[in-house]
């Protein structure tokens, strides 16, 4: 009190306080600067780390390159270079250049003289003509004109001579210069690896520490639907994605494992988040990857989930080359019939995956139907039909409705038609004609295993004898479409006896278990209507055609934005399942009733997917979002892609890939055919290979298999008759053609005429190459015992009406390029012919000659109806 009073305020010193606070302020500023420049920019340290790591790797490569450097060759070349440069300083070279300059000078002079003479001549010509027109011809001008023309000719002759000598001197000068250039190139070549690593090292070491950003203008849209840029700074830390030496480096420096995909989606301009998601602008791992925030809007897609993002741009395609996980996830969803109950964009037009139940009464017994409805897995553990866990009561009611509603008398099965079948012969037919490409039986499950799915795409036949009668099987295998017009099962063109034998064999395949018989009361109106109610409630019509249920809609929720469903929108019931999107869907797919409580009943049936399949369906669901980048970033879904997708789905639905490899998928029958020679042909490049007319006729009626003029008449496995409609054949042909980048057009292959000069040469090459050792032709058909059929190659008799002429030449040039792993060897390795004396050794001409000769095999062409 006293002190304050004693020193007046004006005289008090606050210096110490100012100093202290100024100190704080100063420290605060320093801290702010440090924080801003360093602490809050951890990526700077990351970049320094990368620099050290990459430089070390590159230096190692550089040292290796130095060690491998051929120094004696380099010394040689340096000496040559020095000599060549010396020679350019020699008096001889100086003389040469001087001569060259002199010639050039003269050339200019002579050219000018020529031009002047020409002008003078033109002038004289003008005056001469003028005088002629005026009626008094001037001989003086005429003489001047002649003189100048003579002068021009003389100058021209000189110019020509000078140009010749200029060129010849230049040629000599060039020899000198070439010598230098060659030595320089040689040296550069030797140093190539060194220079390459050195360049890379320099670039890494001198790379500035800075944020690396990719900006995609208008890629996204904000909540008001205005275009919005996408900012992507991932490459600030992920620096080694394109650096081969960082293959074994730790994250975030590791190189990208799929460079072939990056070639199509260039990270330099496209960034990383379109495929990997995450928060692009963020510069910390936690923020960018979304780990730091449980509510992150766009967390990084981890593991296989990354394939989910393909769908953002490739929604319309169910197969992508280079993305097998994506392709198989889509295939799985199509085959499992998800779209029967759920609306999924792009999958609303799929055919029902189950059989028509209007026909069930004529096929199976009421007891069998009851047990199937109650739990289909009990009869066929690998059926695609899920388990609805119906009670006995419910199953009885449903069976009653199905029997009640089934079409009566639609199918006539002749009693006793299958009698006198031989089961052993039947077993053989079943094993060889191709049944097992789709149907598993007993221990024969190799095709299923190769396919890698937990389910079958056609019924397993292990217990079929307990389901249907021999007579029914007989009628069915002879012509499945007669009994069920909508079945996908094709006709294998069995003879009556073969069909009887197969029926006899299959009826021996019985269920050894004994079940109590169930009374099914089809007469009780209450039971029947209760069954009808259950069928509607559980949405059976999503997969089956059921009489009286033709207009049923989908019973469950739409999945179009399921990938964006929030955790708080999901019901976890009484379970202890962690509250995440992934855990919810994983558990749901494992047991669809898991979240059921005493109040909330769940109707989704229980599937038996494998863990791998669950992961794939999960990734498909993750891909179901409404996110779509701006059109400018999309590859247009043009006519070609549309043709491909349409055909692809058709081919899926007919299961062509059980036997044929197509788009790098399929050929599963290979699991039970040991000899490559007996495999169904891969269909890669088919559109480029076969003539449209032939393909049409073959798809319409493939019965030529087994006939002597067929491509491989010795095969036991038969291409089935699918009874395709013309529309379907058109779609398949468009698909094959589009895959080969060709379009449907009418080609007149009949008018192909072999070159008369090449023809005999082709014949002699054909003999020299001994093509006939493997390929049967009409001149040499393998008789019984003449050659093992597993060494045979396709019959060449009908190539003229089967193969496209251009394809044959391409095939001869490099068979393995068109069909990987083919047994056909290359006769022109590296484009070189082994016959230097034929057609001047011109490989291309020789191939054309072979083609022309092969096209004459089989004589005149049978006429084929042309297509559309």
């Amino acid at each position: 009190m006293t002190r304050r009073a004693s020193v007046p305020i004006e005289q008090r010193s606050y210096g110490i306080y100012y100093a202290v606070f100024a100190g704080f302020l100063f420290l605060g500023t320093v801290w702010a600067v440090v924080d801003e420049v360093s602490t809050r920019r951890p990526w700077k340290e990351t970049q320094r780390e990368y620099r050290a790591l990459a430089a070390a790797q590159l230096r190692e490569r550089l040292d290796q390159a130095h060690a491998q450097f051929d120094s004696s060759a380099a010394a040689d070349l340096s000496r040559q270079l020095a000599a060549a440069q010396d020679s350019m300083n020699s008096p001889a070279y100086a003389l040469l250049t001087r001569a060259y300059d002199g010639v050039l000078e003269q050339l200019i002079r002579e050219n000018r003289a020529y031009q002047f003479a020409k002008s003078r001549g033109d002038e004289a010509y003008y005056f001469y003509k003028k005088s002629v027109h005026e009626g008094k011809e001037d001989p003086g001008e005429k003489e001047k004109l002649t003189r100048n023309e003579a002068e021009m000719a003389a100058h021209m002759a000189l110019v020509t001579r000078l140009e010749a000598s200029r060129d010849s001197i230049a040629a000599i000068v060039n020899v000198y210069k070439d010598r230098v250039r060659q030595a320089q190139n040689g040296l550069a070549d030797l140093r190539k690896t060194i220079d390459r690593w050195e360049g890379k090292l320099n670039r890494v070491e001198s790379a500035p520490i800075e944020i690396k950003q990719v900006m995609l203008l208008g890629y996204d849209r904000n909540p008001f639907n205005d275009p919005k840029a996408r900012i992507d700074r991932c490459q600030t830390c992920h620096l080694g994605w394109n650096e081969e030496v960082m293959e074994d480096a730790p994250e975030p420096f590791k190189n990208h494992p799929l460079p072939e995909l990056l070639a199509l989606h260039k990270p330099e301009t496209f960034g990383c988040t379109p495929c990997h998601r995450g928060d692009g602008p963020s510069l910390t791992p936690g923020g960018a990857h979304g780990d730091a925030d449980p509510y992150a809007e766009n967390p990084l897609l981890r593991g296989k989930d990354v394939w989910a993002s393909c769908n953002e741009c490739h929604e319309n395609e169910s197969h992508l080359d280079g993305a097998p996980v994506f392709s198989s996830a889509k295939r799985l969803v199509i085959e499992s019939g998800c779209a029967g109950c759920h609306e999924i964009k792009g999958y609303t037009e799929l055919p029902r995956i189950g059989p028509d139940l209007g026909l069930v009464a004529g096929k199976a017994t009421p007891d069998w139907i009851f047990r199937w409805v109650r739990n289909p897995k009990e009869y066929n553990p690998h059926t695609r039909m899920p388990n609805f866990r119906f009670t006995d009561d419910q199953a009885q009611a449903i069976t009653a409705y199905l029997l009640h509603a089934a079409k009566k008398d639609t199918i006539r099965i002749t009693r006793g038609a299958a009698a006198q079948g031989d089961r052993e012969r039947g077993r053989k037919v079943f094993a060889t004609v191709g049944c097992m490409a789709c149907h598993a039986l007993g221990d024969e499950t190799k095709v299923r295993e190769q396919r890698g799915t937990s389910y079958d795409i056609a019924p397993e036949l292990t217990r079929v004898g307990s389901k249907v009668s021999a007579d029914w099987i007989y009628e069915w295998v002879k012509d499945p479409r007669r009994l069920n017009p909508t079945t996908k099962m094709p006709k294998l063109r069995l003879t009556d006896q073969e069909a009887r034998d197969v029926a006899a064999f299959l009826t021996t395949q019985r269920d050894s278990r004994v079940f109590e018989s169930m009374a099914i009361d089809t007469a009780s109106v209450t039971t029947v209507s209760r069954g009808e109610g259950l069928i509607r409630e559980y949405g059976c019509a999503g997969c089956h055609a059921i009489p009286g249920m033709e207009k049923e809609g989908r019973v469950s929720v739409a999945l179009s934005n399921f990938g964006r469903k929030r955790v708080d929108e999901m019901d976890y019931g009484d379970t202890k399942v962690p509250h995440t999107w992934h855990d919810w869907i994983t558990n749901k797919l494992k047991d669809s009733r898991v979240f059921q409580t005493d109040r909330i009943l769940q109707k989704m049936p229980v599937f038996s997917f494998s863990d791998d399949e669950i992961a794939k369906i999960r990734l498909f669901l993750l891909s179901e979002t409404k996110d779509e980048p701006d059109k400018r970033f999309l590859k247009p879904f043009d006519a070609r892609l549309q043709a491909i997708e349409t055909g692809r789905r058709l081919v899926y639905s007919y299961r062509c890939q059980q036997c044929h490899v197509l788009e790098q998928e399929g050929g599963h029958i290979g699991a039970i055919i040991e000899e490559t020679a007996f495999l169904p042909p891969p269909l890669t490049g088919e559109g480029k290979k076969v003539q449209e007319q032939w393909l049409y006729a073959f798809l319409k009626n493939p019965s030529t298999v087994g006939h002597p003029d067929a491509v491989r008449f010795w095969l036991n496995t038969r291409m089935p008759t699918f009874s395709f409609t013309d529309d379907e054949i058109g779609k398949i042909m468009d698909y094959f053609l589009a895959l080969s980048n060709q379009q449907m057009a009418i080609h007149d292959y009949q008018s192909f005429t072999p070159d008369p000069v090449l023809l005999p040469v082709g014949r002699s090459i054909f003999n020299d190459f001994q093509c006939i050792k493997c390929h049967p032709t009409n001149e040499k058909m393998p008789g019984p015992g003449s050659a093992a059929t597993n060494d045979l190659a396709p019959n060449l008799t009908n190539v003229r009406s089967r193969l496209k002429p251009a394809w044959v030449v391409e095939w001869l040039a490099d068979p393995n390029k068109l069909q990987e792993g083919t047994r056909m060897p290359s006769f022109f390795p590296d484009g070189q012919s082994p016959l230097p004396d034929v057609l001047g050794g011109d490989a291309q001409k020789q191939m054309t000659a072979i083609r022309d000769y092969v096209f004459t095999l089989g004589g005149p062409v049978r006429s084929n109806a042309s297509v559309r």
Partner: protein
Amino acid sequence: MTRGICLGALVGALLIGFGGGARGGDVKGKVDFEGTAPKSTRLMMNADPVCMKAHKDPVYTEDVVVNPNKTLKNVLVYVKDGLGGKKFDGSSAAKLSLEQKGCQYFPHVIGIQTGQELDVVNDDPTLHNVHSLSKVNSQFNAAQPKQGMRLVKKFDKAETFRVKCEVHGWMGAYIGVFEHPFFAVTGEDGSFTIKGLPAGEYTLEAWHEKYGTQTLKVKVGGSGEAQAKFTYAAK
């Protein structure tokens, strides 16, 4: 040209120096066979008269060849482990040859280094093609329609694979590619020698096309030879 030869000689000298200088040694051994040899099947070559004419005596399959001294022929023995990260360049090693003669491959099993040249020759006046069924190395499938045709091939990755002729289904051979020169194939007496291994401990593996692989450890000391014995039993 001379440059290449000089370089080859240099590398060769280095290799020899390496083998001797590191005070290494050879591994010698034998592959015994126990039990009765499976009956070999006679090859029927009547599909191609040229092949048939090439043989007066019957020819048998070569998948299992048991020598009279109860040893197994055509076993490929090689160092599987123990060389550390040492690199060996095979491009200077002598060219090997795979002959097609009388519609059979000679030798039936061949060991080769990465980068080493293999000369595939057709000695028959008929069409052969060599189709390599390799998985790691790129496949080749070249026709040799004329007698005396040659094809020189190199392999860049270690792998054992089958080559076959697609014209003559019975013709098959095996090629083992290694990143080092320490391998051998058993012959008529079932013995093998792997030369010039630097001192150290190694895992040897024996491979047979029908009976599969076996491994054992071997120690190569300062001097002399190490012994190794494999035994395959009839199945």
